[in-house]
């Protein structure tokens, strides 16, 4: 479902003497349907960079990133937009929403974008919010004023609203208490059971051991000159 080959990445900082910083070389991995692969490596080793390249908000310098038949590294913007709508979900560490939009709408939005009838989309949003222990009195409020842990759970609910065939999870259990951590791990296991291919970053080692079938060490992709 997700296949990466010969992937490399460098940043060119034009306003700092055009410094070119190679950050990744010859990265390769694959994630099959129903499988969860964890990225490991110290902070700054390139885990998030790799995830962002799969999501398409970081450009690859060379290589192939195949997600469900589309090469994200060479795709047109509108192909990536369609991929994100239908096929690829992403739970990032930060919630980015239009202020003032109620939490329930934020969670239902991926389904509304797919053309799911509004009632159905909102019901699905409500059941996820309830499962993630967001009190119902908060559903009509914008999540922008919520605590970090609550925002994280809204983000997770949004990411799991649609049954994406491929999912990227960036520290989905960070800043969660034991109860909610358990709910998130169960959601991940259910997604695997329905056949989703998941690529994740988990600093929580117990969580990683429980949901990941394999791990990939991104330090193997560090450019040789910089190592």
């Amino acid at each position: 479902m997700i296949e990466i080959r010969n992937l490399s990445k460098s940043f060119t900082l034009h306003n700092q003497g055009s410094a070119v910083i190679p950050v990744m070389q010859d990265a390769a991995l694959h994630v099959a349907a129903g499988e969860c692969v964890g990225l490991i490596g110290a902070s700054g080793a390139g885990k998030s960079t790799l995830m962002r390249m799969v999501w398409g908000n970081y450009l690859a310098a060379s290589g192939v990133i195949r997600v469900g038949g589309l090469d994200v590294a060479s795709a047109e913007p509108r192909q990536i937009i369609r991929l994100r709508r239908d096929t690829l979900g992403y739970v990032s560490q930060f919630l980015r929403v239009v202020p003032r939009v109620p939490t329930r709408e934020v969670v239902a939005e991926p389904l509304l974008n797919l053309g799911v009838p509004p009632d159905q989309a909102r019901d699905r949003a409500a059941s996820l919010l309830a499962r993630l222990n967001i009190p119902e009195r908060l559903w009509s409020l914008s999540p922008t004023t919520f605590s970090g842990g609550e925002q994280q759970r809204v983000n997770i609910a949004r990411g799991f609203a649609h049954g994406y065939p491929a999912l990227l999870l960036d520290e989905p259990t960070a800043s969660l208490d034991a109860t909610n951590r358990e709910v998130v791990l169960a959601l991940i296991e259910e997604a695997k059971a329905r056949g989703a291919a998941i690529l994740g970053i988990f600093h929580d080692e117990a969580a990683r051991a429980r949901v990941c079938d394999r791990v990939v060490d991104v330090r193997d992709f560090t450019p040789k000159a910089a190592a």
Partner: protein
Amino acid sequence: MDFMQKSVAPSVETPLLSVQGLTKRYGARIGCADIGFDLFPGEVLGIVGESGSGKSTLLSCLAGHLAPDEGQVIFDTASGPRDTVTMPEAERRRMARTDWAYVHQNPRDGLRMGVSAGGNVGERLMAIGARHYGEIRETAVDWLGRVEIAADRIDDRPRAFSGGMQQRLQIARNLVTGPRLVFMDEPTGGLDVSVQARLLDLLRGLVREMGLSAIIVTHDLAVVRLLADRLMVMKGGYVVEQGLTDQVLDDPQHAYTQLLVSSVLQV
């Protein structure tokens, strides 16, 4: 349901708007130069750049308010793709009333300030042939509701409205005729941030429900991050970078875009 049709993408897509080699000079000075892009149905394109970068000139050329010196602006009309630059003036005006809409930064430029709110919306309907008073008023009430203006304000003139309300009224006036393409020039400029948020939410909902395509000119990167699918960055009349919105903002490739993104204050 109309929104169900949107998710069924046709196998071969025709761009709604196809722009090639568009250039506008002011004497020896460049307004915008060699602009080219395709806009597909349902897409929102953001154009960013600082004052004087040519983004407003470009928008005016696209919307037919300014005649470009070179280039084509091909719109997929009901009778097939047509170059709007070379089409007769009368035909272009008819298209501006039906298929296109233009939301000005200053609502005063897009509204008739001496006419009631209902009149502002109804006037656009009459311009395309609506004659039944009851139906026009009913549609006007419906649209005022969609842009969150209370029905009891229908007979008030826009002068009596706040800036945010005026901007929402302008949007209702523009969208009532069911256009396929909306041009927006700094639609949230000059509004308080809380009013901006409300307007962004409204625009996002309308784009999704109506399957609109839009071209939004702004200098506000936060606005394009939330509204635009794709982004073009302009400097000195040229497009220096374009791509998926979050890619251009998170991993900018051009020196100017890097400067622009790194200059934004974090809140």
